[in-house]
């Protein structure tokens, strides 16, 4: 049994067992859904990051939408903390340390609008904290069909390892990519691997995305200079069940096997956040490097509306998953 499900169903069950205050870390963005968990969840203290993209033609609109969303949370016991998208990880570390000065809590990290370079880093630091009573990650979908038709993000920088996920062991012989709507810079990353090292590239395709998103995802697949070829190159995983995606990773690259123990696969999380969560957990456990091409600017109309909120329990007491 893997403890995940709709937020409203799972969290009360966790609280029954944890009997401890709830603290929330999240991110307020121009997206409506960034307010979902902070408004649905009862928590004693919240830290909501406000991430500042690189200046762009979207800046004014993004600021307006963020201000509107912040207003919805006035009165809640929330601290807002602004951070540049490319802030040094040490800034995030110190913000987290200050927030968790009293770690005896059920910590909820809402990854809905957290940029991957923040979310991955935060999760690594929090999983290390032994005194947390529990750790839960949440994610809210937009309303059905709520993703913008326009590109969701722009101006990715060149591929680089996410903070906290640099190469730790031997260089990988396998690269696993989770695909989504955009493949910004992915070709450059794969070209590097192919030129220099003998690597197998495997792809995870999220399902179900529903139409028209499946077309969009396939379009991104075929935009690659070298799309997946041959049986076994691509594998379908649940777009929502992070534990299913984790199992898929373990089947492709069993972390404790002789092949991957000293050279875990490189991971590239370009797909939905629940699949990225799976990759994050795999990378933390087995020491995989994680590569990403971080966009500099996000579309302020990234998504509209609020859909279902999902929660994934990673730790409760002395038990942990996966």
């Amino acid at each position, binding site marked *: 049994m893997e403890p995940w499900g709709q937020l409203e169903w799972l969290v009360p069950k966790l609280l029954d067992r944890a009997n401890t205050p709830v603290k929330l870390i999240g991110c307020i963005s121009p997206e409506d859904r960034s307010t979902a968990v902070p408004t649905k969840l009862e928590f004693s203290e919240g830290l909501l990051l406000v991430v500042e993209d690189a200046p762009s033609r979207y800046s004014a609109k993004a600021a307006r939408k963020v201000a509107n969303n912040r207003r919805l949370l006035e009165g809640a016991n929330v601290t807002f903390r602004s951070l540049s998208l490319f802030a040094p990880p*040490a800034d995030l570390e110190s913000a987290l340390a200050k927030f968790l000065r009293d770690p005896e809590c059920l910590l909820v990290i809402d990854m809905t609008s957290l940029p991957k370079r923040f979310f991955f880093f935060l999760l690594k630091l929090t999983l290390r904290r032994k005194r947390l009573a529990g750790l839960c990650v949440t994610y809210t979908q937009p309303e059905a069909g709520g993703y913008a038709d326009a590109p969701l993000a722009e*101006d990715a*920088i060149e591929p680089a390892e996410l*903070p906290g996920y640099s190469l730790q062991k031997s260089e990988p012989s396998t690269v696993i990519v989770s695909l989504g709507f955009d493949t*910004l810079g992915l070709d450059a990353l794969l070209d590097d691997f*192919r030129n220099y090292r*003998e690597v197998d590239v495997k792809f995870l395709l999220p399902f179900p995305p529903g139409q028209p998103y499946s077309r969009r995802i396939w379009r991104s697949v075929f935009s690659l200079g070298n799309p997946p070829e041959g049986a076994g190159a691509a594998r379908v995983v649940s777009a929502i069940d992070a534990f299913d995606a984790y199992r898929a990773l373990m089947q492709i690259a069993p972390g404790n096997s002789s092949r991957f123990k000293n050279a875990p696969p490189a991971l590239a999380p370009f797909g939905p956040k629940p699949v990225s969560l799976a990759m994050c957990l795999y990378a933390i456990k087995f*020491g995989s490097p994680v590569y990403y091409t971080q966009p500099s600017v996000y579309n302020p109309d990234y998504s509209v509306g609020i859909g279902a909120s999902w929660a994934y329990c990673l730790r409760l007491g002395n038990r942990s998953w996966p």
Partner: protein
Amino acid sequence: MPRDLNPFHTLYVTETARRNPEQFTQLFSPEILHGEVTSLFEPGNTIVQGSIGIGKTMLLTLFMPRIARASLQHGELLKHEGYPRFAVDINFSLAGFSTLGQRPLADSGDENRGLWSAVFGDLFNYYLVERILVNLRDLEGPEDLLAERLGAKITAAKLDEFARTLAKRQCWYDFLKNVESFESLQKAVSKRVAAYRGFLAWNRKRLPPALQRTKTEIGVPLGEIADCLEECGLFEKAGPLVVTVDQTEVLLRVDPQASGNSETSLGVVLCRTVNRALGSRDPRVSYKIASRPYALEQNLQVYGTGAALEQGRDYQLVDLDEIFRRHENEDEWFFKRFAEDVVQRRLRSVGWESLPPRLDELFAGEPSSGTGDSAGRRRRKRAPGPRLQPPGRLPASWSTYLSGLATHDLDDADRAVVWLHQISRRERAMPDFDKYVDEKQEPSSDNLPWRREWWRKERNEVLKFQVASQTQQRRVYAGWRMLLTVSGSSTYILLSILREAFDIFIRDRAGKERGGETPPSVISAATLSQAIRLAAKRALERVAHGPHGDTRHDFLLRLGTALRDALMSDPGISYPGWTGFSLSKAELSEAPDLRRFLEELSGFGDLVHLDHTTKEKDGLPREKWYLAPILCAHFEIPAIRTKEPYYTSAAEVANWRKRRTVIKLRRKDRNDSQSELFPG
């Protein structure tokens, strides 16, 4: 139809080395290994500079053991006494260096940068040592061709002796004092690298004190290793250790919040730390470094000293963009020769030896009008007369003459129309008909202005595009020479186009012939045109998916559209050179942000950057930029550099950068300096 039958399916020849080493040796063209490129195989430091896709990495990977083995096993690629060599490689992107600097080592900026420089140098050394030890082990096997060629005499006993000798060298500050064997050496080195990696991955709070006390100076241990290899007799033939270094631009990005190449950027500090290794000119170690354009010239200083690297003394430069660039004398165009060899090898690799021996026979030439107009005529009725619209209020004499001329030479009639536009605009009156044509409707001289060689040559390409536009057709791209032009001296682009062309050919043939394995006798103009357009579309899409892709894509889209509009709305083709733009060096030096932007576009191969010999009276030095030829194909503008580009200012180009700004090239009045463009 097996996809693999397309000889251009795999774009990267290095990828074939992994899957099929024998095929790699067939595909790799040693034509590249001439002239200054051979300095790669000479002792000493070499910097290979060039835009993306030009082949820098391909050259460096020649040193990799698996490539060197493939070369020896299946026919030697390079006959050079400096190849193969015992070599080791570092790719900063894959080696985990992109997260350097994310953790502060000190509070003050200067101290932090200094400490990171030292940490970087030490990690650089130990990373390479770890790989050297692995590569040595690889050579231990019996009957290894590479070992034999290198004169390697690697035994377990010698490796242990090597380890003990190396460990005693002072460069390690006693870190390796407990090393007794090769295995313990490997363990100690790997442990140190792992400690650094643990720190960079935020797995540990701080660097172990032992590491901090025993940091090595960048490059020094590598020279000691070269000495010990010789001293312990592991190689019969002495020679410098070769270290290939790729993706140095990763270092420049470790500090994303720092602006450009500021002195306070940690990335700049790290690049300049690498320069310390080159600047030492250690004869025991040869560095072979790949660099994008501009990255090098902006970072020649050696960190911690007041010195800068000197070309010729500290390193040799191999500028691949320059080597491949087409100059005035096309017979000396190196890329042409190289491309011919690459393509012929690819065709032979699938057994198509029976193809026409010359590529200009395989790729059909273009129809005389360059627009496929004969097909257009069949499709619709066209009024008699030239295809281009003559000037308004054209006297009947000229009109009749043009109609007659068009019946037997459409191209000449169109050229005459262009000339009429030119003169009428300049003189504000039509030229005197009787001066040029006699009463029998024959030219009154042998040298009608629109037939003069240089006049035609300067306008021919733009004319073809204007005709295509006017007749609502598309420009036909045909012929081997056109293919080379549109490739812009990029092997990657050339192969991308040919991949499309042969995919089309194979698809078409599959429907007609069983198996479809017969090679083509000719690649038609229609096929090549379609292939070029597909490759061009993908090239622009790739821009959008690349680093800072949206900004680059947006700018290129607007610039390409503006250049096309300017050329198509110039009926006199007075500005055939407006396929690019020119800026003064002085203005650019005062606009560093703009300079960086243009350099980035050039580094990615979006623009071609050249020095410009100005025609302005002030004679001040200028630089010019053109769209990459493959992108010209997308925007339906000629990939030519003729006459004068569009003279502009830093302020104007800075304005062009603003998203959604419509770029418009402004025609100046006829009294300005660009009036020299009007034909004499």
